[in-house]
């Protein structure tokens, strides 16, 4: 297929997944801010914006983190390239460009999300509460995902879509996990306290993984278990290892389809091998934040390689 088409498919998936994450982030932020804390909710929102890389733009436009402004910034604001509205619009625009590379149902799901978004934008803001908005986004992303799984041809385009999903999800899980680092940074003695647990469980909840976590681990929520669940546990759909294994799978399929493997396959296998031999103890020794930063860097690096090999259309 055309490199540009592959690129559009890849970005449809990345934007849809990002919209999903940002909506969940809004949920985490709102919940964390509901409990009393000695820093006030301001610092929690700050850390959330920091971790998601959206802090600078927000401060420049709105200044203080007031709940309503945060909702605007994360959900509706087109000046924020990662807002839900920006992501859904970009996903739909990418889809419009490559309509011929997807089934009518997939286009329908993406287009309807965009049309409904435009209706939401016209509605009175006071009639839309935060959880309604988050639920709406989760539902839209599920509809798109479902249409892709149900009736898209399993050809190379399908692999590029999934690469987008897995890379974005890997990046986003790492960033959500990193929110904890920013929230806790001021007071290390919180670790293991009731407040700490509440924040961890909010995080799980935001990833729709609270119950799954309890099924898998049971007992107390601890930092160690959560890190294991979200980084190293292949049963967890958002775990870093699951995302990298997914990317590895789709890159292998591409290599098979095209009859040649190269830098992208090498790069993803190296990441997977490292994750497979990783332990929670070693991650905590390195420092969770340091580990996650390094991981986010590697994912970006993999994205660059994929772009060079497949999406940029360089003459090979």
């Amino acid at each position: 297929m055309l490199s540009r088409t592959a690129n559009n498919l890849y970005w449809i998936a990345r934007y849809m997944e990002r919209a999903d994450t940002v909506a969940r982030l809004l949920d985490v932020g709102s919940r964390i801010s509901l409990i009393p804390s000695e820093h006030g909710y301001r610092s929690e929102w700050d850390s959330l914006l920091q971790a998601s890389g959206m802090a600078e733009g927000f401060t420049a436009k709105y200044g203080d983190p007031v709940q309503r402004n945060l909702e605007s910034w994360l959900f509706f604001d087109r000046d924020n390239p990662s807002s839900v509205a920006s992501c859904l619009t970009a996903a739909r625009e990418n889809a419009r460009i490559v309509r011929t590379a997807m089934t009518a149902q997939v286009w329908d799901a993406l287009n309807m999300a965009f049309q409904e978004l435009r209706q939401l934008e016209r509605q009175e803001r006071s009639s839309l509460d935060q959880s309604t908005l988050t639920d709406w986004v989760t539902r839209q992303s599920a509809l798109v995902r479902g249409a892709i799984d149900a009736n898209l041809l399993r050809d190379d385009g399908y692999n590029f879509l999934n690469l987008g999903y897995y890379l974005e999800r890997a990046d986003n899980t790492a960033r959500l996990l990193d929110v904890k680092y920013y929230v806790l940074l001021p007071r290390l003695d919180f670790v293991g306290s009731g407040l700490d647990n509440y924040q961890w469980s909010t995080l799980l909840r935001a990833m729709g993984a609270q119950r799954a976590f309890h099924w898998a681990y049971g007992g107390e929520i601890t930092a160690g278990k959560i890190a294991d669940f979200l980084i190293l546990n292949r049963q967890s759909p958002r775990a870093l290892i699951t995302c990298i294994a997914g990317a590895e799978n789709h890159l292998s399929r591409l290599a098979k389809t095209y009859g040649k493997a190269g830098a992208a396959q090498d790069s993803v296998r190296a990441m997977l091998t490292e994750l497979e031999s990783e332990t929670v103890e070693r991650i905590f020794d390195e420092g969770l934040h340091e580990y996650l930063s390094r991981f986010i860097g590697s994912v970006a690096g993999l994205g660059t390689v994929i772009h060079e090999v497949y999406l940029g259309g360089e003459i090979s």
Partner: protein
Amino acid sequence: MGVFFDEMNGSGDRSGGGTRAPYARLEEWLATMPKELRSLKQAEAEALFRRIGITFAVYGEGGDPDRLIPFDMFPRVFSGAEWARLDRGVKQRAKALNMFLVDVYGRGEIIRAGRVPANLVYQNEAYEKAAVGFVPPKGVYSHIVGIDLVRTGPEEFFVLEDNCRTPSGVSYMLENREIMMRMFPGLFRENRIEPIDSYAEILRRTLASVAPAKCKGDPKVVILTPGHFNSAYYEHSFLADLMGVELVEGQDLFVDGEFVYARTTEGPKRVDVIYRRIDDAFLDPLCFRPDSMLGVPGLMDVYRSGGVSICSAPGAGVADDKAIYTYVPDMIRFYLGEEPILKNVPTWKCAERDDLKYVLDNLGELVVKEVHGSGGYGMLVGPKATKAEIEAFRAQLVADPSNYIAQPTLALSTVPTFVDEGVAPRHVDLRPYCLVGERIELVKGGLTRVALREGSLVVNSSQGGGVKDTWVLAE
């Protein structure tokens, strides 16, 4: 003015004429349709269009980029006999226009014979020096010829203009039919309506039939689009999908040696036929506009050496220029030795002194158009204009007469159309899409555009026009 031919009821003022035969069943349909159903169906049609994403952006107007072209559910109907004549007339014209193009980029016989003035051709902005001496495969320059027709009476059809470059709108022809069939299947059971859905297949075959000599095996056809910001992007992707060919942008193609290649995830893939939906000027920055980002550097060299076919061929525009238009009947006589089946609208060329004088004296009754204009912009409709508008236009006209032609205001036929108050006659035109390759083919249908504003004669979608499904009845 005031008396218009209505295609359903006959003459507008003589109500005794009775319903014309092709519309007989529609009259019944209309009479038995409950009013609630009508608005329900109209809403359904709109939702369908928006859902499949057919929208139309108007250049330079801003506003909603996802605007819909209004769709009118009342179809326009031709009898088989009426269509047979149009079919012959349109094909005759498409053939002559292509012969003219091969001629003017070759020996220029029609100019030597004194039938068309040399300066109108060779000094025309659309005359492409890069095409001189080159005969495209099968001698075809214009592969999709859109001929705009208007009607003033039962037998009176006039050609308003020819479109030899990249006429748009065919996606509406196809989608209007899809939507009508989906909403009113009963109508299609009761009326025997010729299908049009072979259009994409014929288009693909036409494009493949003009593959360059160097192409061995199954030709690889692509559609070249300026990109998704273009107002006709939907149509480009729609046609690519129907034909099962790639939709590419300039950046997806590159020239290497004597061929053109597409950048794919598996490396370069050779391209044989390019159905381009961008203007000549943007095709190749090395040959035409150096600042163009839309084209493919080196494309023209490959084209001239027979490594790739470009449809329509660069330079085809000289045949659909409004100044050349007046000579098309002569072309038909000159090349084919036949009388034109379809008439031209009488046209005054403002470049000529006597004509200009007549036009200036009768501005209030004429339609004056820019020679190179399109889309209903920059034109004056005398009978509909205010005094001030006429005087403003007069100044423009005097300043640059050769930029304008004038035609009488035609009493365009009307077709019943759904309006707020019920059903009312609205003026229409017709654009059939003639395909020229190894053979000349025309599907039985076209795009009917309708001026939705009462009394308006301007059918362009940028000026408040809508579209209708166009039926040809099987004999």
